[in-house]
């Protein structure tokens, strides 16, 4: 049952291309805003990694919040509740969100590498690992929180408010790790602590989200 949910979401996405195009446009707007507000400025590695992850996190919050809210808006959540088990829905949505965050991360890397002179990553492998771990943590957090927000009124404004405190360890660890990978070529010693935090946070948040999902989903 996991794959049918994922397949359904992918098919809807391919039909409308709403999620991907919204996220890519969001990224493009963010990057150009940065470029126009600081034209030709020399940016340090810490500022560069902060901008990169800010763009990525807010892009994810914009794009991923749709997953449950759209079901609620189209009135299909009742049918989904009837036909599928909560666990399968969670994993399906989670995988779809994960794919979306991965494509978002790839787009962000391309945009940043294309537009910013100072976006130079010295340790590509470690940077890729951070992207993967960051994407997993973000997508599981946003999946459960968007399911939560879908049950409330004022859906749009609520998600960032709820998600920021939960995502903060991730923000701190990823920005720090990326800054280090931008500065040194062999960065394992420097980013070890951050990678450990990222990994444990991912495992914890994914498990807790999985366990708690059916409490939100049931009527």
């Amino acid at each position, binding site marked *: 049952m996991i794959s049918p949910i994922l397949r359904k979401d992918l098919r809807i996405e391919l039909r409308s291309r709403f999620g991907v195009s919204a996220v890519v446009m969001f990224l493009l707007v963010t990057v150009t805003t940065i470029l126009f507000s600081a034209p030709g400025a020399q940016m340090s590695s810490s500022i560069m990694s902060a901008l990169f992850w800010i763009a990525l996190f807010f892009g994810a919050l914009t794009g991923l919040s749709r997953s449950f809210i759209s079901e609620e808006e189209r009135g299909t959540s009742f049918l989904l509740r009837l036909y599928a088990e909560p666990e399968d829905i969670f994993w399906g949505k989670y995988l779809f969100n994960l794919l979306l965050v991965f494509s978002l991360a790839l787009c962000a890397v391309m945009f940043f590498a294309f537009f910013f002179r100072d976006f130079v990553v010295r340790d590509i492998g470690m940077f890729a690992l951070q992207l993967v771990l960051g994407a997993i943590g973000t997508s599981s957090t946003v999946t*459960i*929180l968007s399911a*939560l927000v879908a049950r409330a009124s004022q859906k749009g404004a*609520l998600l960032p408010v709820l998600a920021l405190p939960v995502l903060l360890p991730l923000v701190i660890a990823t920005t720090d790790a990326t800054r280090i990978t931008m500065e040194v070529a062999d960065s394992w010693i420097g980013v070890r602590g951050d990678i450990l935090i990222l990994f444990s946070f991912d495992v914890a*948040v994914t498990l*807790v989200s999985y366990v708690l999902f059916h409490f939100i989903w049931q009527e």
Partner: protein
Amino acid sequence: MTNLIMKFFRSTPYHLLLGALFAVSVFVCFATPIGGSFNDVVTLKMNNVANITPLKATITTTGYDSVAKKFYNAKDLYGTEKRVLVDRTQDLKIGDVIVADCSYLPSENYFYVVRIERINPVITFPLIQGLGELGRNMLFHVPMSMVAFIAFLLAMIYSIMFLRTKNMDYDFKARASSAIGLMFTILATVTGSIWARFSWGTFWNWDPRETSIFILLLIYIAYFLLRSLLEDGEEKKARIAAVYNIISFLPMIFLIFVLPRITQSLHPGSSGTEAPIINLSGKTHTDPILTYILWTNVLLFTLLFLWMKELYTIVLRKEFSAND
């Protein structure tokens, strides 16, 4: 037996006792004189921090007289023995403990007592260099922040209990813990930032512990915002709020226990700095009396929190049954 204990905790005598203990504690925290060592007097003078420093010392021998002053030999808490010069009007005996404003001139070989604050005090607090009288705030600020986190932990436990049993009573308790916890968080933030203004120079500087209390504040606010925006059905509302409460506990673990130990911090106990007053190993480098009073205050504030939480739970319960 447990019933009897619970009955005691809800009775008026207990609340009067709690109030009386609080009054005593506040009195002790403010009235106890602070006194340092000879070394503190010298260091603060040499670094141009303070001309006059409170000193705590025991008189060992009466020295020789001059016309208006009298010399004594005195020993501080580290056992250093020095000569002190005191006004003749004060008559000190051997073995008297004095807490006095003390000054020091590098050219002379004695310490000059400006004013005797207290003779033979029951308890004294050690002087924390760089804090002085501001150090008293520790006895309120630290318990408040601890209670803020205890409240959050309790709310999380009640949320789990609610999801397991679907008993609305646990939701009232979780909500009451969060509400009173929010109050304590605000108090801890305010006392902390005022303290930081006068000892570190700015109200706020994103130190890891400040970050974690700020995030705690955000979580509490988000929790109540979420509750107010959820529609239809008290049970469903409680369920979703409980889920958020449990999820938001995860980042707190990282922020409280992991982050302060891997990044630089101005607060004592982080990596690189040695905790002067409290650390996890329970080793104190100064007078243990401050530690005892600190932990007593932590206990008192926790009891106060539990009582307030209990009262608010009763209010929520009544409200619920009135709406039903």
